C-alpha cells in the first residue's frame, strides 16, 4: 500500500482484529501501514523497513514489546525511531521502564478512539 502522506507506520500487535482496525483507520488517513504480530518479526521488519513510527503492543508471544523495544534501541537507527506503546495493561510500571527506552507515549487501547490515536500520530509526525 502506498502512503499518500509519505509516512509509514509499523503496527506490532498480536491481536489480529485490533491490528486490522488500526491499520484500516491509518490507511484511510493516508498512512502506509505495516503489520507484525510478535516482537521478533516486528524487530526484523522495523530494522528492514525503517518506518516513521511504531505502534507497539506489549503482551505478545515469542518476544514481547519491551524486549523488542530494548533490542530496537540498541540499533543505530532504532534508537531514535518514535515508538508509541499500545497496551491494555493499564499500569505504567511498564511506562517507567519504557521511559528509559525513550517511548513517545503509552496509551491504553480501550481508552482511545481510533480518531484520537490518528490525531496523536499526525501531531507527532506533522501531517
Amino acid at each position, binding site marked *: 500500500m502506498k502512503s499518500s502522506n509519505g509516512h509509514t507506520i509499523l503496527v506490532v500487535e498480536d491481536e489480529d482484529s485490533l491490528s486490522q482496525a488500526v491499520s484500516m*483507520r491509518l490507511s484511510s488517513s493516508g498512512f502506509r501501514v505495516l503489520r507484525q504480530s510478535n516482537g521478533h518479526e516486528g524487530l526484523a521488519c522495523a530494522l528492514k523497513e525503517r518506518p516513521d513510527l511504531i505502534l507497539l503492543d506489549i503482551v505478545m508471544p515469542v518476544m514481547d514489546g519491551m524486549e523488542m523495544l530494548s533490542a530496537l534501541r540498541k540499533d543505530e537507527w532504532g534508537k531514535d525511531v518514535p515508538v508509541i506503546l499500545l497496551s*491494555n495493561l493499564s*499500569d505504567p510500571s511498564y511506562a517507567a521502564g519504557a521511559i528509559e527506552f525513550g517511548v513517545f507515549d503509552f496509551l491504553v487501547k480501550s481508552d482511545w478512539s481510533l480518531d484520537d490515536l490518528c490525531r496523536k500520530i499526525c501531531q507527532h509526525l506533522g501531517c
Partner: protein
Amino acid sequence: MLNTFRRRLSLLVILMAIVPVCVLIFFVFTSMRNTFLDQQRNSVLLSLSRDVNFFEQDFKQTPSDFSDQSFWSEYFVKNDLVSGRFLVNENGSVLFGGDHLVQDFSFDKNFFLTDFSRHISVDSSYIGFFERDNVHYFFHRIFVPGDIPESFVVVFEPVLTSDLLTGYYSLRNTLLSGGALLLVLLFIIGFLFFRRLSEHAVSFVELIRSVENGDYSQPVPAFLLSAPGDFGVLARAFQSMRDKLHLAHDSLRSDVDRKTRALQMSLEHARQDNHALSVSRTALATALEDVREERDRSKMLLQESQKFRMAVDAASDHIVIADADSVILYANPAAERITGFLFEEMRGKKMEDSSLWDGLMEDSFYEDLWKTVRDRKEAFVAEVRNRRKNGEEYYSAVSISPVLGDGGKIVFFVSVERDITEQKMIDQSKTEFMSLASHQLRTPLSTVRWYLELILGGDAGRVTKQQKMYLEELVVANHRMIELVGALLNVSRLELGTFRVDPQSVVVPDVVRDVFRELRSEIVMKKLVVEEQYHAKNFAMLADRNLFHVVFQNLLSNAVKYTPVDGSVSFASEFVSSHKSLRGQKFDVDTVVFSVTDTGCGIPSDQQDRVFSKLFRADNARSVDPDGNGLGLYVVKSVVESVGGRIWFESIEGKGATFYVSFASSGMKSRDGSRDLVV
C-alpha cells in the same frame, strides 16, 4: 494546811477570850455606874431632905390658902429653897418656881402629871425620885401641920441624869484609857517576846530544814547558841549533833558514790556487751533476710526471664538480638527456620554480614535502615527481599528496633521478621490476576470500540440512520464496560493496597484542564457554564499526577453528568492555614482545599451517608444516568484518604452539590506500590 488550821484555831481562841473579857468589862463598868448613880442620888436626896427639914422646923403657921403664891414665895425665898427647885401641890399645880423648867429640862406637863400621880399620893412615899427623859425628878413632901391631911406640898428638884453621872464618866474614861494603854503595852511586850521566841523557833526550824536538805553549812546563829535557858541548850546540842551527822553523812555518801560508780561501770560494760550482741544479731538477721530476698528475687527473675525466653523461643516470627555493634547474640528457632541458618552459625557475626541471609535490596535501602536505627535511634519497618541459606528468595516484613539503655545509648538491636513470602505471592498472584483479567477484558472491549468506530465512520459502507442509532447504543454500552473494567481494577488495587503514589510537582490547573477537555463534548451539549478559580495562578504542589487525575476526573464527570442543561460546574482551590477551619472542617496543617460545585440534582439528604460506599447510587442519580457503576466515589475516597487527604460534600436535593477534597499543602506522601491506579 495545818498552819491555816492552827492559825484559825488560835484566832478562834483569841476571839473566845476577847468576848467574855469584853462582857466582863461591860458589867464592871455598868455596876460602877450604878453604884455611882446611887451614890449621887442619895446625896441629892440627903441635901433635899436636909433643906426640907430646915423648912419644916421653921414652919409655924399653916397658911390659910395653900394656893397662895405669895405666901410660898416669901417662904421659899426666905428659906432659900428656891434655887433650881419648884413647889407643887397635891394636884400637881406649880405653886412656886419652875420658871426654868421648860427651858432647862424640856419639861412636859402632861407627862409630869402622869408620873407625879404615880409616884406621889397621900399614902405613898414622901421622898424619892423618878426619872423621865434623862431628868431625875427628886421630890420631898412637906407635911403641913394642920388639919388638912389631903393637902400636901412637894418640893421637886430636877437634875439631869448626865449631871449625876459626871463623876462616873470621868472615872470611866480614865479607867478605859488607862486600860487601853496597859493593853497596848502588854501587847507590845507580848509581841516582842513572842517574836523573839518565834524567831528562835523559826531559825531553829530553818536549821532543821537545811539539815533535812542535806545542807550542813548553815551556821547556827549566835543568838540561838547564846539564848538563855532551854533554847540555848537545845541550840548547842543541835549544833554538835549536826556536825556529827554531817561527818557521817559525808563518809557514807563517798562510800556510796564509790560503790555506785563501780556498779555503773560494770553495768555499762554489761550493757555495751549486750548492745554489741544485739547489733550483730540484727545485722545477721538482716543479712539473712537480704540473702533470702535476693534468692527469691533471682528465682522470680529467672522464672520471668524463662517465661520470656520461652515466649521468644516459641514465637513464629524470626527474632534476632544483637549488641550495639550489631553482633548477633541470640536468634530464636523461628529465625533459624526462616533464614535456614543455625544460631551457632549466626553467633558472633554481624547482622548485615553477607554470609548470612543475604539482603537483595539496594544499598540505599540498607543505608537508610542503619541511619534510622543507629543515628536516629528509631525503629525501621519495611518489607525486604532476602535469600535463605539454600538460596531460596523470600519476602519478610522487617522491624528492627534499637534498645536504649541509660543515657539513651544503644545497648541492643532487636530484629523481628515475619516471612510474608506466601502472602506476597498471594498478593502478587492477585495483582497479576487482576492485570490479566483487565487486560483480557479490555482486548475485546477495544476491538468492539474500534470496529464500531470504523463502521460509524463509514469504513464498511454507508450507515443508515437507524443503523447509526443502534450502533451508537453499542458505543455507549461498550464505553460503560470499559469504564467498569477500569473502576474494578482500581477497586481491587485499592483493596490490595498495591497502588503507587509518586509525587512530583504537579501544576494543578493543567490537570483540571485536561479533565475538562475530556468532558468537553458533554459540557458543550448541555450548554454548561464552566468556571475555574485558583487561589494562586498556576499553582503547583507535590502530588501524584495520576491520582489527581483520577480524583478530579471522577468529581468533575459526576458534576457534568448530574447537572441539567444550562447549569454550571465550577472547580476552585483554596488555601487554608493550619489550625484554621473551612466549612466546618478544621485543619492541623496548612492545607489546600479543592472544590467541585454543580447546579445539578443534588443528593437526597436521607441517602447522603451512603454516597461513598461501593456500588451505591442515589435514586435521583439513577434517574439521570441509569448506567453509572457506583464505584467512582468509593475509589476517590479511598485514594484521597490513603494519601492523607480528606473528602466531604455539601448538597441540597434539586439545588446541586459541592464536593471538597483537601490535601496537606506539603503534598502527597510517596507510596511504594506495584501498580498505578487506572486513570
